């Protein structure tokens, strides 16, 4: 189990009702954690539309999470 600090923005912030939280998880990757949180909190965005950042850098969804990482899930940006 690892401890992660998660920060939420935009639609995820509103759906979670929090700007940040610290949690203990067995999820090994951002995608695995997102699926876990999505099931728990009813996030409407599927995992393939959400990018991840660890310690303020983009990472692939398969990135190996480490104890103490700061994680942000990034909904689609404003675009057009």
């Amino acid at each position, binding site marked *: 189990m690892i401890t992660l600090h998660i*920060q939420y*923005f*935009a*639609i995820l*912030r*509103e*759906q979670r009702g929090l700007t940040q939280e610290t949690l203990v998880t067995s999820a090994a990757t951002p995608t695995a954690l997102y699926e876990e949180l999505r099931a728990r909190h009813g996030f*409407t*965005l*599927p995992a393939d*539309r959400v990018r991840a*950042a660890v310690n*303020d*850098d*983009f990472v692939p969804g398969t990135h190996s999470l480490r104890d103490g990482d700061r994680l*942000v899930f*990034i*909904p*689609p*940006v*404003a*675009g*057009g």
Partner: protein
Amino acid sequence: MSFRISSEPLDPTALARTLADARAGACVTFEGWVRNRNEGQPVLSLEYEAYALLADKEGARILTEAREKFDLLGAVCVHRVGHLQLGELAVWVGVTAEHRGAAFDACRYLIDETKARVPIWKKEHYASGVTAWINCATRGDFADAGR
């Protein structure tokens, strides 16, 4: 060259002044304004929210790319965050170059890449009272509206 996020209103005149350069023959600017409709719906206001730490990093990368691709002298990109009213300036990009071709191309590159890659989100408030995070609909248009 600079990229930044601003929670204060943008001042195009002051921003343009920072680009003054005796070598420059061309200055191209892009301003993104809050407009009163989007895809047919009347819009009342917009909220922009940024993941500032990563936005700054990604913005700096985009500026570096532009400098490698185009023959630029200067470039500034500033994006507002917060609750904006109709007609307000949401983003300002200004580029100087010796010649106008490079200035146009670089300005276009900077705004296109910024909109596609920088973690800034936009929520529209409609006259109907509904709101929607743009590009976050998952079950048809505006499926996430109002949540």
